[in-house]
C-alpha cells in the first residue's frame, strides 16, 4: 500500500508544472486519470520523451472536449474525484462547464486546483507563461548570473518543478483539512507567486533595507564567507561540448578554511592575514579565487573532492548528466534511474527517475510506463463511472472518446 492509495485525481494538466504535481501524487499511489485528446495534441500529446518523463504511473483517457458527450463524461468524472487539477490559462475549465462552482455544487468534497501562470484575478491573470517567462518576471533570471549580465538565469525550467511540488503540498494539505471538515475547497496557484516567494529573504531585504541585489555569480550574496565558488580542474570531462571539469568548494567557516589550507599544503600566500577571517576572505575573494584556481587546475576533480571531503571541506564535482548517469555512486546505488519494465508501445524502452522520498512502511517504488492516447478509456470509465465496455467502444467510434 502506498500512502495516497484511494485518492482519485482528475488531471487536465499539460507540459511540465501540472504534470509534475500529479506525477508526485501518482508515484505515491493516487489514481491519476490524465485527460488528453487527439485535438489537443502539441506538447500535451502522449508521445515523446518529454511527456513520458512527467506522466508515468498515470492512466489516460481521451476526451474530445469540443463534444457535449465528452464534457458530460468529464463532469461525471469530476463528481467522483477527490482532486480536479488543471494548469491552463484561467477560464478554460469554466468554458467547459466544469468550473469550481459547477463541480463543487455536486461534489462538496472536491479539491479543485487551478495552477495558472499568474493566478486568478489581477491585471495579468490571462497572461501566458512558461517557466522561463516566470523566471524572468520573478527576479530569478536577473539574480542568477554574473556582474554586468542580466541575460543568463537558470539553465532549466526550475520553477515548473517547484510549482508542481507546491501544488502537491497544497493538495495534500487540503486533503488533511478535509479529514477534519469533510469539505473540499478551491486552490488557486500562481506559478509566478511560487517563484517570487522563493526569493523571500531578498524581498525582505529590499523592503527592510531598501537594497536590491545585483547578480553575483557564485558568491554568497549576503554572507561574508569564502572561498565559495567553482574552480577549474584537470581530468577528463564527460561533457564533450565544453570539455571542462570543475569543482565547487564552499568554506562556511574558519575551520573549513583551515582544513582547506592544510590540503593545499599551507602555501605561503594562504598565511596572509587578509585571509585569516571569513570577512577578510570575502573582501579579497577575487584574489582567493585566482589562488585556488591556480591550485585546482592541475588536479583531478574526483580525487580532489575525496581529499577535501575527507578533511571536512565541503566540495563537490560539478556533475553533468553523464556524470549523474554513469559515475555518481549515490544515484547508482539507489537505482535512481530505472528502466520501466513494460515497453512503451511506440517508444520501446522508457525510464523513470525515482521519487526522492523513501517511505519505511509504504514504499513507492512502483514505476509504470506512460500511457498512449485513450489507452485506459475502458478501465477508467468502468472503475470511476461503471460504464460498460461496449458503450466505451461506441464512444470511441463516435469520436468523443478520442
Amino acid at each position, binding site marked *: 500500500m502506498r500512502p495516497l492509495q484511494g485518492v482519485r485525481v482528475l488531471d487536465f494538466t499539460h507540459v511540465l508544472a501540472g504534470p509534475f504535481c500529479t506525477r*508526485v501524487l501518482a508515484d*505515491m499511489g493516487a489514481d491519476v486519470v490524465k485527460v488528453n485528446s487527439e485535438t489537443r495534441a502539441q506538447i500535451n500529446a502522449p508521445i515523446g*520523451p518529454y511527456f513520458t518523463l512527467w506522466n508515468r504511473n498515470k492512466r489516460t483517457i481521451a476526451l474530445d472536449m469540443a463534444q457535449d458527450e465528452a464534457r458530460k463524461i468529464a463532469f461525471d468524472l469530476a463528481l467522483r474525484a477527490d482532486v480536479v487539477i488543471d494548469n491552463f490559462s484561467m477560464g478554460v475549465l469554466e468554458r467547459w462547464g466544469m468550473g469550481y462552482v459547477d463541480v463543487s455544487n455536486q461534489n462538496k468534497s472536491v479539491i479543485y486546483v487551478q495552477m495558472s501562470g499568474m493566478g486568478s*484575478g*489581477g*491585471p495579468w*491573470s490571462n497572461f501566458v507563461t*512558461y517557466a522561463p*517567462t516566470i523566471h*524572468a518576471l520573478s*527576479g530569478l*533570471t*536577473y539574480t*542568477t*548570473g554574473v556582474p554586468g549580465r542580466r541575460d543568463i*538565469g*537558470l539553465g532549466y*525550467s*526550475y520553477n515548473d*518543478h*517547484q510549482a508542481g*511540488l507546491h501544488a502537491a*503540498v497544497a493538495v*495534500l*494539505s*487540503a486533503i*488533511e*483539512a478535509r*479529514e*477534519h471538515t469533510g469539505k473540499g*475547497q478551491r*486552490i488557486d*496557484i*500562481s506559478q509566478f*507567486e511560487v517563484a517570487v516567494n522563493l*526569493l523571500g529573504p531578498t524581498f*525582505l*531585504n*529590499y523592503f*527592510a*533595507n531598501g537594497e536590491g541585489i545585483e547578480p553575483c555569480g*557564485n558568491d554568497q550574496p549576503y554572507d561574508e564567507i569564502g572561498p565559495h565558488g567553482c*574552480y577549474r580542474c584537470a581530468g577528463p570531462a564527460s*561533457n564533450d*561540448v565544453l570539455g571542462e571539469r570543475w569543482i*565547487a568548494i564552499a568554506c562556511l567557516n574558519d575551520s573549513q578554511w583551515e582544513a582547506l589550507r592544510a590540503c593545499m599544503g599551507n602555501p605561503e600566500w594562504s598565511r596572509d592575514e587578509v585571509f585569516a577571517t571569513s570577512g577578510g576572505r570575502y573582501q579579497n575573494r577575487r584574489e582567493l579565487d585566482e589562488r585556488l584556481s591556480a591550485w585546482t587546475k592541475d588536479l583531478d576533480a574526483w580525487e580532489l573532492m575525496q581529499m577535501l*571531503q575527507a578533511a571536512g571541506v565541503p566540495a*563537490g564535482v*560539478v*556533475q553533468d*548528466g553523464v556524470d549523474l548517469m554513469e559515475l555518481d*555512486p*549515490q*544515484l547508482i546505488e*539507489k537505482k*535512481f534511474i530505472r528502466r520501466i519494465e513494460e515497453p512503451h508501445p511506440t517508444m520501446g524502452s522508457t525510464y523513470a527517475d525515482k521519487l526522492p*522520498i*523513501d*517511505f519505511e512502511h*509504504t514504499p513507492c517504488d512502483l514505476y509504470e510506463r506512460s500511457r498512449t492516447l485513450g489507452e485506459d478509456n475502458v478501465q477508467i470509465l468502468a472503475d470511476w463511472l461503471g460504464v460498460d465496455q461496449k458503450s466505451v467502444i461506441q464512444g470511441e467510434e463516435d469520436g468523443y472518446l478520442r
Partner: protein
Amino acid sequence: MMTESQRALSGTRLIDLTDARAIYGAKLLSDLGADTVRPIPPEGDPLANRGPIDKQSGESLWYAFHTTSRRLFHMSNSSKSRRQLQSLCEHANVIVLNDGHPFESFLDLANVRDSNPGLVIVECTSFGNTGPWKDYLAPDLVAGALGGSVAITGDEDTPPLKPFGDVNFAVSGAYVAVAALAALRHSRQTGKGQLVRVSVHECIASCLEHVFMWYLYNDVFRHAKGKALERRGSLHWSNLYQVMQAKNGHIMVTPTPSLDNQLVWLIEENAFEDLLDPEYQEPNARGRWARRMMEVLRSWVATKDVESLFYEAQEHHAPFGWVHDIPQVADNPQLAGRDWWSSLEVSGNSVKSTGSPYSHSDTPAEAGGIEHLSAESEGIIDAIGWGN
C-alpha cells in the same frame, strides 16, 4: 503571535529540527497551520545569523522568513529541558529533521516512536543514509554541483553557476513537506506512523527538467551534440527560448507554442527577413528555419522597447517574459492586483514580505509570528495545549 483562524493543518503538531536543507519545508507546513515547535539549543540557533540582516535591528531576515508561524522553544542543558523536548516529541504528529541536528546526542527517537506509534518522522539528509558520499558536506552550492543544477547554469564564458539563493534547498524543503503530508495521511487512516527519508541529492536530480531526458533519449534529439548539454546562458534545451536584448532592457523571448504565429507577427511588423524563403519549405528544414527564426528575433527585439514588446507579446499569446530586477518585481502590478504581499514582524517592526505560494479558498495559508517558550517553564505540554 499565532493566528487563530482555521488553516489546513490546524491541529497538526510539528517539531522542527531542520537546518537549511529542510527548513523551507517546515515553513510551508507551519504557514499552512501546523502547530510548530522549533527547539533552540542553548548556544542559539545555528541559522539565526544568516544574511540578509535587518540594518535597523541586526536581526537575520533570512531567519525571519524561514521561521514564521512557530514557537521557538529555548533549551538549556538541564535534564528538565531535555525531558520536555522528549515529551514534546511524544505528543507530536510529525517531526521533520536533518541529520546532525543539535539534539541528536540525547533525543531518543526510538523511544519516542515506541510511545507515539502514529508519529511521522521525516529525515532529510544530503545524500541518503548509505553510500560513499553519505557523510559528505554539502551546502547549497556543493549540493547543486553534485546534484546537477550547477552544470547547466551559467554561460560558455562564465564558470558553472549556482542558481541564486537557496534554490537547491528549496527543492528538498518542498519535498520534505510533500513527504510529511503523504505520511500523515497514511497515519490518519491507519494509525501507523513511519520514518520517511528524503535525500537532498536525489531531490535536486529529480528537478533538472531535460538532463536525464537528454541522456536517455539522445537518439531522439537530432540536434544533440552529446549526452550532456553544455551550459549556455538562457538558451533553452529546445533552442527556442532565450533572453534577448531589447532597446532598453532584456526579455525572455519564447516564440512557442506556435512558431507560425510568431512568423505572422513578424510579417505584420515587416521584420520577417528571409523566413519565407522556399529553402525552408524543404523536408527536414524545420530545425534550420527555427534557428533562423531566433536570429531574426534577436535583430527585431533589439529595435523594440522592452515594456511595449512584453505587452504586445501577451496580446499575441506569446509567453515572453520581461527580465525584472528586484525593485521591478516589488512594484509588479499583478502582485499588487492580487493583494499578494504580506508582512512579517522583525524585531517589533512590520516589514513587507512575500505572500503565500498558494491560495486555499477555505483555509488560507498565512505566515504567522513567533512565540518564545522557555524550556525551564513548568508544564510546557499543557501550556501549549498539547496535553489534550
